[in-house]
């Protein structure tokens, strides 16, 4: 029994989960663990302030030192190897950035095109629950998810199965997590050590 436990722990460590809890490790698709490289960059898709939460989660708590600009232009993103898109349309956020939803959609399209041209890996994150699942949010989610290598979604945002269906259709691995903190742990587990 002890030997079995030891073997499992060793296996997890070899797979790159040395600093990731077993619970988190179980959520991460094995083929994706540890393959996302630094430098990383975080921006929003839809100007949701959830991006600011992801920023402090990734940089202040997890010390991953990603670049951040909620309304990043392509030149700011250029050079990154991992792009984190925090999904969700916010009228207040759009207003603060002086953008219409059409302008924001155009910005996101340009950033996605650059990311693909530079062979970045893309992590789509949705942490805002049902509040970030209105019509505008759904449109921007549907725009981004097909480009993503993985989608990390806090459970409340997928109550209607929207992400489940979209990710299945686009063949994008979907990781459902119970909390924003756990979304961060999953993201950390995806990153190369």
């Amino acid at each position, binding site marked *: 029994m002890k030997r079995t436990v030891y073997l499992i722990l060793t296996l997890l460590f070899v797979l790159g989960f040395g600093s990731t809890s077993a619970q988190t490790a179980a959520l991460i698709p094995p083929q994706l663990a540890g393959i996302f490289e630094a430098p990383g960059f975080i921006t929003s898709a839809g100007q949701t302030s959830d991006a600011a939460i992801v920023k402090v989660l990734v940089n202040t708590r997890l010390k991953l030192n990603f670049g951040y600009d909620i309304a990043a232009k392509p030149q700011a993103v250029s050079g990154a190897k991992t792009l984190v898109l925090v999904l969700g349309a916010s009228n207040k956020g759009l207003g*603060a950035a002086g953008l219409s939803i059409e302008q924001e959609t155009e910005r996101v399209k340009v950033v996605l095109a650059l990311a693909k041209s530079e062979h970045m890996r893309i992590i789509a994150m949705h942490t805002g629950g049902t509040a970030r699942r209105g019509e505008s949010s759904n449109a921007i989610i549907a725009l981004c998810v097909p480009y993503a290598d993985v989608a990390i979604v806090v459970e409340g945002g997928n109550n209607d199965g929207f992400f489940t269906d979209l990710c299945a259709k686009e063949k994008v691995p979907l990781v459902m997590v119970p909390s924003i903190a756990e979304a961060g742990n999953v993201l950390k587990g995806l990153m190369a050590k």
Partner: protein
Amino acid sequence: MNYNKRGLAVALAVAALFVLCIAQAFGQQGSQKGEQPAIGPSIVLLEVRPGPGVARIFLLSDLDSGLAGTAFDTPVFEFADEAGQADGVLHPEGANHTEGELLQPALFVCAGTHENEIAGILAAYWLIEKSRVHGAKLFVMPRANAAGATWSLQNPQSPRILQAVPGISRTFRYGARLSNLAYETVSDPPLFSPPAAPAGFPALAGQEMRNLNREYPGSIDSSMTARLAFAITSLLKKENISIAIDLHEASAGSNLGYSIVTRPESLDEAALAVLDLEETAGKSFRLEESKPEFAGYSHWEWGKLGIHAFLVETFNPAQPSDDPAVDQFNNAKSPLAERVYAHLWAVQALIANAGVSLGISVNIEGLPASVLEVEDWLKAPLFEAAP
């Protein structure tokens, strides 16, 4: 001062204030043919029993005598730093200090800006009755706009009364969002623009002149609501407040329920608090960044003074109509105890994370360990509630 001496001093202060306020209340009732309920500081002093953390109680009229004897006067509860003289914080330039001056950290928790947003008021009462503070002084103002606690949308002459267990548990006033027009000194204008509003800001409905949360930083030569805002701003300056939190509630339609709103410079602190609250309160708060259109709001204007200022919202199922048919205590979607619990832990999370930015470590002792603990407190009679 040791706890016994402090307790005696607080008890004497409360007794003196109580006598003063009840006399005032009866005077007011007498002048209005005995039909009006109590007004001013007595509203709070009848509803809460200060606990061992409270070192001093004073009235807002101590900062502006123009509020004395009016429905707008309200008590402030000062908590001493239990850890002794805390390390100072470098405060930006302000009215009572110079840039770079080292000051003892002081914090401010405000509730009852809107007197129908009851969970914040009760969270403030919990702090007053059960908490101690280590690492800073704390000022708690549970009913910022006491004039809003003298009426309700259902009755312009009287607030509603909430009681968890009829005839047994403590009672609380459920007032209105705006100051009572009966106690204002000027009539509502046709349209109202917050004094601090930027050029081109669209005017609001005239009754918003009586919305305390559009009147900051306030003025002594306008309405009484503006004067109230001015006195609160004066308090923040006088006491060199570093962190200020205004507790509110929102309706389902406003999309603000369970959110923290703050200025851009405090956004990271609020974001970290949101993460903390997932764990401590089991609640997913949303984050909103405020902008110049928030002119006149407490947190926006306080932030201009260099204060780390936050607006906290929970979800009140009775709003916006203050529907009396909604059972605040047993509402399935958003019971009152859950909202009070969330407010209290939001206060702790915001103070902790803003404190990191300021280089101070503040701990509030005596927060509830569970929603059930708050529920039991709400169901208890008033005298049993005091420690």
